[in-house]
C-alpha cells in the first residue's frame, strides 16, 4: 500500500509522525519503506538517525533517480545503518525498514515530464512488490512532488493508495488543511486533472491532528479554573470549525498528543524512550501504534 504524508504548513510534525508510523508498522512485523519526496529539504535521515543521509544522500537519491541520472535510488537499511543503538537492535519478527533518501543539495522540481512520471510509476510498482507499506513524505504546501504522486497513483489503480493530511489543532491549521484538500489547485483539483475520480479520491484522504493537548489529562490539573474554561471554550470552537471545514472527527484517522521529545528533537520513539529512560510519554507511542494499525484497517477508510 502507498501512503502519502502531506501538510499545508510546515512544522506540523508530518515527517516525524509518518516516520514513527513506519517504525511501529515494522515492529508489528510488516515490511516498510520510507521515501523522502521533500526534495527541497531532504532531512528524513536525521529522524532515523542515519548520519550518512541526515541531509540527503550523496550516492544518488530520489531526486537523481527521478531525473533519470541513475537506474535506481539508494536504499538504506535503517535496522543496520542507524546510529542509535535502540533502533539498531532489530527485534525478532520485525519487518524490513528501508529508507530511500533524497539527494543532498537537491531542490524542488519546477515541473515534471512524462519520463519522470514513468520512472515514478515504475518505482512505486517495484516497491509494492517488496513492501507492505510505502510511506511517501511530501513537502509542506502545494508542490510538484504532490502533482507527481497524484499522476503516478492515477496510473496505478490496482495498488491501494491513501493520503494523510497532517495539521495542528489551531484555527489557521484547520482552515489550511481543508484548503490543501478542497481549495483551488488542492489535492482534489489536481487529482481530477490527472485522471482520479473526485469521490474515490476523497475517500482515500484522512486527517491526522498533531501536537494535540488533551484537556482531560493530568497536564492541566495545575491550571486555574478560568484558564481551563477558556481552553474548553476554544477547543469547542475549534471542533466546530473543523466540522464545518470537513476536518472533523469523521475524516480524522487519529491524533498525536503533544510530546516534548517530538517538539525538541524529531526522532523515532522507541519502547526504551517510554519504559526505560521515560523521556517520552506512553500515550505518544500508543497514538503511533494506533495510526500504524488504522492506516491499513479498511473499516477506518470506508466511504463517508
Amino acid at each position, binding site marked *: 500500500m502507498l501512503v502519502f504524508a502531506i501538510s499545508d504548513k510546515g512544522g506540523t510534525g508530518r515527517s516525524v509522525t509518518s516516520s514513527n508510523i513506519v517504525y511501529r508498522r515494522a515492529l508489528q*512485523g510488516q*515490511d516498510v519503506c520510507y521515501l523522502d519526496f521533500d526534495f527541497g529539504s531532504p532531512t528524513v535521515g536525521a529522524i532515523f538517525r542515519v548520519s550518512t543521509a541526515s541531509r540527503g544522500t550523496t*550516492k*544518488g537519491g530520489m531526486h537523481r533517480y527521478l531525473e533519470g*541520472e*541513475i*537506474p*535506481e535510488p539508494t536504499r538504506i*537499511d535503517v535496522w543496520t545503518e542507524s546510529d542509535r543503538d535502540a533502533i539498531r537492535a532489530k527485534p*525478532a*519478527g520485525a*519487518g524490513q525498514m528501508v529508507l530511500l533518501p533524497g539527494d543532498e543539495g537537491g531542490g524542488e522540481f519546477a515541473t515534471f515530464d512524462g519520463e519522470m512520471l514513468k520512472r515514478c510509476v*515504475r518505482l512505486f*510498482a*517495484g516497491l*509494492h*512488490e*517488496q*513492501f*507492505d507499506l510505502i510511506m511517501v513524505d511530501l513537502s509542506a504546501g502545494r508542490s510538484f512532488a504532490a502533482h507527481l504522486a497524484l499522476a503516478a497513483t492515477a496510473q496505478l489503480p*490496482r*495498488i491501494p493508495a491513501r493520503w494523510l493530511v497532517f495539521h495542528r489543532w489551531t484555527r489557521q491549521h484547520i482552515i489550511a488543511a481543508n484548503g490543501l484538500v478542497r481549495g483551488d489547485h488542492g489535492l482534489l483539483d489536481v487529482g481530477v486533472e490527472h485522471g482520479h475520480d473526485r469521490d474515490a479520491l476523497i475517500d482515500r484522504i484522512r486527517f491526522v491532528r498533531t501536537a494535540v493537548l488533551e484537556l482531560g489529562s493530568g497536564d492541566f490539573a495545575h491550571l486555574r479554573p478560568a484558564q481551563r474554561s477558556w481552553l474548553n471554550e476554544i477547543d469547542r470552537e475549534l471542533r466546530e470549525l473543523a466540522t464545518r471545514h470537513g476536518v472533523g472527527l469523521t475524516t480524522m484517522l487519529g491524533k498525536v498528543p503533544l510530546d516534548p521529545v517530538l517538539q525538541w528533537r524529531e526522532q523515532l520513539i522507541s519502547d526504551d524512550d517510554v519504559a526505560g529512560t521515560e523521556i517520552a510519554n506512553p500515550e505518544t507511542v500508543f497514538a503511533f501504534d494506533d495510526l500504524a494499525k488504522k492506516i491499513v484497517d479498511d473499516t477506518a477508510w470506508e466511504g463517508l
Partner: protein
Amino acid sequence: MLIMGEVRTGLLQNSAEIEERDHQAVLGLLAGERVRMSRRPIVYAVSPDLLTGVDCRLPSASRARIRGVGTVVSRSSITGGRVLQGSSYVRVTRGEVNYRLPWSHYLARPGVVEVLGKVSGPDVADGFLAFGAPGEHLDLGSVSDRFMDVVQESPVLDLRAPFRSNRTRLRWVAETGEPGVHFTLGEGQERTLKVTHQGEFSPAVVDLCEDLALHDWLLTTLLTIVQRARIGGASRPEVSARLAPAVDTLLHLWMPGARIHPSLAALWESLERTPGFSRQWQSLVERIRDQLAVNTLALLRETNG
C-alpha cells in the same frame, strides 16, 4: 572471450498462479513472437529473446576505462505460474577496430559486446562480480529488471501477491575449462556464480544459471517466511497463519535441475553437495509441516476441551 550475465528473480504480482493461457499475454513482450512453454515437470514459459543496444563502460576490477559497444540478450520467464525471472547476458569480445562501427554491424551479432581497445577478461569478470555502484557501468541487472517490470505491469495481473518479497540478483560469468561451479551468497540480495564448462558456450549454461537463481530465490524467500513466523515466539494460530503463504505458493515449486541439459547435470549435483540447496530446503519444508501439524493438534485439543 568472456560471457557474463545477471538473473533477477521475484514473485509474479498476482494473487493466484496464472493460468496457462495467460502466459502469452503476460510474456508476449515482442509483437508477433510466440512465448515458448513447457508443461513437465513444472509449467515454464519463456519470452522470445529481446535485444538492447549498449555503448558504455564495462566493469573493471582495476578501474580501467573500457568501452564496449554491442547488444545485450534478455528474456523473461515464469515458472509454476508464480516466479518471474529477468535474465540478460553478453559475450564480451575484442573488437577488430578501435572505433564504433555502424549499428548494423552490432545487430548482426546479437548478444555480443565488442570492446574498443585492449581488454582483460578476468579483470572485467572480477569487476562485474564485485557489484559496484549502479549506473556507472554496463548494468545487465537493470536491463533484466526492466523486462520484469514490463511483465509486472501487465493488466492480466491483479497486483495482490500473497506476500511481499525481494528480488534476488545473481551475477554469473562462464568460461571454458575443467567443469566446475562456484556459488557465493553476498550481502542482501546479491549472489555470484562462476561456471566453468567443457567445450563451446551454449545457451544451456544460461538455463543452468537461471535454474540456480530460481532455487536460490525459493530458498531465500522460504527462509524469510520461516524467520518472520517467529516459531516459539508468537501464538500457534499466528505462526500457522504466517506459514500458510509458503505452503500455498512455494513448497511445490522445488524442482532443481528440471530443465538442465544432461551435459551440465554434474554441475548441479556438485552444488547439491556444497552448499547443499535441497538439504536446506528439505529441512525447512519439514519444519513448516511439523509446525502446522503440531499447531493443528493443539487446536483440536482445545476445541475438544
